[in-house]
């Protein structure tokens, strides 16, 4: 095991960056932005270095493990470590932060504090790394809640005209979820105290508990609702469209692309292993919510008149796929869900960033009707926008396709009808996404679009990594599969599930 505290260093780097930003002269806007970019890139480099040392064949549940007592009296510790799932989500966060900083370079231009904007983004990065790396459930909870603060300020201070409403709505929803989770957390602690004689929040110890099914069912709900609000599942989703619409594009990317994944990550990491019986009990309900969300989100997206709201509903539809994959309990679908989290994170970045570039050039309007004929005046921007659209509909060959297909495959292996309904989502996705592209980019130029300048070097640079990763992970997902597969196998072992056997299993059908 490595002795370098990789995860702590990684988590601290953006935080130091945020603190340094605070002491920089507020007038030197350029320096502030550059510093923010440098620190976020440093975190990315660290992630790459760390990722290269990750041992895919290791039998240990977590790697880069660190554990220091925090409040020993209550069995609370500062414990971090990642499995393959945590690793790729940390990587998603540290990849998208520099991308959004670069893309959101000029997001703050009207006298609001540039320093604050980028400092909050860096603080958020620290918290996102922490939340995916925590192996102490109390630490996870604290980070899960504290994360709301930077997002609240990022929306509430730097967002659109209706930002106060959107930020508050987001906060109330999250608070309700957080309180329920807190209650369940305490319950869990009580159970651990009863069974072990000494209460603990240590993840491994909690997984080892033998909680009676009734208690499981109650505690499950507390965590589940918090997660279902975070990665909004139908019907807990209505904060999302408002938050997406009022956020700056950079905030929307971090919120929907990364932060919301904490919800689905929490389902795989905490719900299934700690409450296996309850997970099985509630699976039909979650599956129903997921499938309704897939179709409902897609249909509502089809009728949207606002680009950002459209992408929000499309995301909700995709979160349905991710949750579905988790709760049908197959390695295919669970790995698929993890890949889909990555794919969706990248797709969200492409979607909101290109939408943001469009808006900056058309007086800030996100109304679809503002646009038309962009392809004629700004072909490069329109090209990236088309890529975002194709990424949103999970075109085979792109990252989201592998995830989506594996989710559907796993679902099909257990619930054929559910899989058939969910598959219809791919038609609706094509309909809403191409309708959007058609209205925005084709046809005669709208007056708001005339003379629109094409993307500049900085903007292109911010999108290129997203595009490249989307293609590479779609064509060669092996590096991700190598690390995610063992983690998913471990979850499946923990919950005592095995994949359904094919009707005519060939010899050695299972790996």
């Amino acid at each position: 095991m490595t002795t370098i505290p990789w995860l702590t260093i990684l988590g601290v780097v953006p935080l130091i960056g945020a603190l340094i930003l605070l002491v920089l002269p507020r007038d030197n806007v350029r320096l502030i932005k550059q510093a923010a970019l440098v620190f976020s890139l440093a975190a990315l480099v660290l992630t790459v270095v760390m990722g290269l040392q990750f041992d895919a064949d290791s039998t240990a549940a977590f790697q880069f493990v660190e554990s220091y007592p925090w409040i020993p009296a209550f069995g609370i510790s500062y414990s971090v470590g990642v499995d393959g799932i945590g690793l790729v989500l940390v990587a998603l966060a540290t990849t998208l932060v520099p991308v959004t900083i670069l893309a959101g370079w000029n997001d703050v231009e009207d006298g609001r504090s540039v320093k604050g904007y980028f400092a909050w983004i860096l603080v958020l990065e620290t918290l996102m790394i922490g939340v995916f790396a925590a192996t102490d459930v109390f630490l996870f909870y604290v980070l899960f809640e504290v994360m709301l603060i930077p997002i609240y300020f990022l929306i509430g201070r730097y967002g659109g005209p209706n930002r106060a409403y959107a930020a508050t709505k987001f906060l109330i929803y999250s608070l309700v979820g957080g309180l329920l989770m807190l209650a369940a957390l305490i319950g869990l602690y009580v159970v651990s105290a009863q069974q072990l004689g000494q209460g603990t929040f240590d993840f491994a110890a909690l997984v080892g508990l033998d909680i009676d099914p009734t208690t499981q069912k109650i505690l499950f709900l507390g965590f589940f609702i918090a997660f279902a609000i975070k990665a909004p599942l139908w019907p807990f989703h209505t904060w999302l469209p408002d938050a997406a619409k009022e956020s700056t594009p950079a905030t929307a990317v971090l919120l929907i692309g990364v932060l919301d994944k904490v919800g689905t990550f929490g389902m795989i990491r905490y719900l299934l292993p700690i409450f296996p019986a309850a997970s099985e009990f509630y699976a039909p309900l979650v599956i129903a919510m997921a499938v309704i969300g897939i179709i409902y989100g897609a249909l509502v997206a089809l009728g949207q008149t606002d680009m950002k709201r459209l992408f929000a509903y499309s995301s909700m539809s995709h979160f349905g796929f991710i949750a579905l994959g988790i709760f049908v309990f197959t390695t295919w679908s669970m790995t698929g869900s993890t890949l889909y989290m990555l794919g969706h994170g990248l797709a969200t970045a492409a979607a909101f960033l290109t939408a943001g570039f469009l808006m900056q050039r058309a007086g800030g309007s996100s109304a679809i009707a503002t646009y038309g004929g962009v392809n004629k005046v700004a072909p490069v921007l329109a090209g990236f926008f088309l890529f975002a659209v194709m990424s949103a509909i999970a075109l085979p060959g792109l990252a989201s396709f592998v995830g989506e297909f594996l989710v559907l495959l796993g679902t099909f292996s257990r619930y054929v009808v559910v899989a058939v309904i969910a598959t219809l989502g791919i038609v609706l996705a094509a309909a809403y996404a191409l309708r959007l592209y058609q209205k925005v980019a084709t046809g005669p130029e709208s007056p708001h679009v005339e003379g629109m300048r094409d993307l500049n070097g900085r903007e292109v640079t911010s999108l290129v990594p997203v595009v490249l990763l989307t293609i590479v992970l779609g064509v060669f997902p092996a590096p991700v599969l190598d690390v995610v597969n063992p983690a998913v196998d471990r979850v499946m072992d923990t919950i005592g599930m095995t994949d359904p056997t094919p009707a005519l299993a060939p010899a050695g059908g299972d790996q």
Partner: protein
Amino acid sequence: MIGTGAARLADATNIAPVIQPLAEATGVFSYLWLLIALPLLGATVLLLGGRRTNRWGPYFAVLMVVAAAAYGIALLVGLLGRSADDRAVGQTLFEWVFVGGFTAPMALQLDQLSIVFVLLITIVGSLIHIYSLGYMEHDPDKRKFFGFLNLFVAAMLLLVLADNYLLLYVGWEGVGLASYLLISFWQYKPSAAAAGKKAFVMNRIGDVGLSLAIMLIFVTFGTVVFDEVFAMAGEASESTLTWIGLLLLLAAAGKSAQFPLQAWLLDAMEGPTPVSALIHAATMVTAGVYLIVRSGAIYDQTIFALTAVMVIGVITMFLGAFIGSAKDDIKKSLAGSTMSQIGYMVLAAGLGPVGYVFAIFHLLTHGVFKANLFLGAGSVIHGMNGEQDMRRYGALRKVMVITWLTFMAAYLAIIGIPPFSGFWSKDDIIHAAFEVNVFVGVCAIIAAGITGFYMTRMVIMTFFGKPRWPDDAHPHESKAVMTIPLIILAIGSMFTGMALLFWGDIIDWLTPVTGLEQSPLPFPTILLEIATLVVVLVGVAIAIGMYRKDVPEEAPQDVNILTKAARNSMYDDAINDVLVVQPTYSLSRAFIGVDNRGIDGIVNGLAAFVGGSGERLRRWQTGFARSYALAMVGGAVLVVVVLAVVRLP
């Protein structure tokens, strides 16, 4: 004239397909991946290179396809050098998707079936690329056009070379993307943009079938690799195989514009004509036929699915022929004809081992003569200043001699006049149909008659009679860069059928993959050939009778119901609108209402209730961040208290 039917009348044959062990790709086959990589490189360079590549980019694209064609021919020579049951070569590039027991490798397979597609795609593709140098000469986005064309060729080659269903899906969707981009190439035209979208969305309905088929294949066989699936096909239950067959048929119907997913193809004619020739006539739209024939091992076990394939083929064969007979737009008439001809192929595939080889044989000859017809039409449109209405043509044979003569070669090929290509392949399908079902055989003959009618109508309206040209049109023969490909294709229209049959032994070549079953007919084959020819000539005569005199510049309105329906493409848009589009949008509107007033209303109401009045809510909002920090602290305190209590005992 001795048709092939006569040649094989001697006795009943029954050749089962063999699953050839995949030989490792060595020697000339070592660079199989290059076949896809070359056009993909072209697309990448052109699309990412930007304006720098404007000048030389199109030539680079042409070079890439020609190089792929040359390599394709080398591969054919390589295959010819192997024994007949050892012509499947596999190349695994890397593991692509692997989870639990599921694996889909990035692996290619070249065999007798895929090589004929490779050659069709790259050779016809090369000619169409060259032709486009002239056709798109003055288009400001010429570079993009060639980039998209190269992208299409790469995706299509992936489709036919993939060794498993999931990888095939990537090629399948890749050609869909290229098709979308090229249909809406002139996307400042709203009609072009709408047509592209329509094609993509309707194809996605077919993709639902392909996705579900792949899933069902995996949960049944535990693999999606062709050879492994086919080796076990006989062991699965018939109902499962029937479902797989029907789902693959749905996929094929989408991609190949077969009933009931045919409506996008006519709109797809919004794309530049070389695109119509390459994608929407010669290659992509035949991918459905490839899928069915490739999956023959599955269809062989399920007479129900096979019959469904045949029925869909018959329906579309007539549907397309009617539409082709009524449209005045030359490209739309040809698009109807394409639907109809693919209907023939699907019908043949639906005959099972009796028809698979002939489906592919017709697919190849059709690929050549239909490309010829479309490029000829393109040459006419080019010369007529963009005019596509045949009622404004007439007498063009005098000013466009090469276009006219080459078009005539393809005309004779498609209506099946011996010894032109179409005669051999269509005749074989009719023969095979009679072996299985007399009714289907009769249908195939009648459709041949309608083909004779609409093609003669097209030729007369375009090249004969008096000029009805618009005032600003100054028709002229196209440049050599366009006419040379036409001449080559016309030679192909004349000889492809004979060359494939007698020189290429196409039947023997394909049977190791497709199998072949033949039984003698109760009457001499020559009778069938004569009957078919007579019906075709009747169709030709009717057309001559109707269009010999002056063609009115406006379409007459006092026509029968069938003509009216056919002019409206059998009301496909209206039907889809009522059955699918409107209900979807209604549901969408209803859900939006639910979302805004229902769910969100309840949430906001709750919030107002919790916060008391709206005023208080607002104050609550503004002070909320600070309160929240407080609440956090309070929460933490609460936790600590509870923990302390719990620890007490």
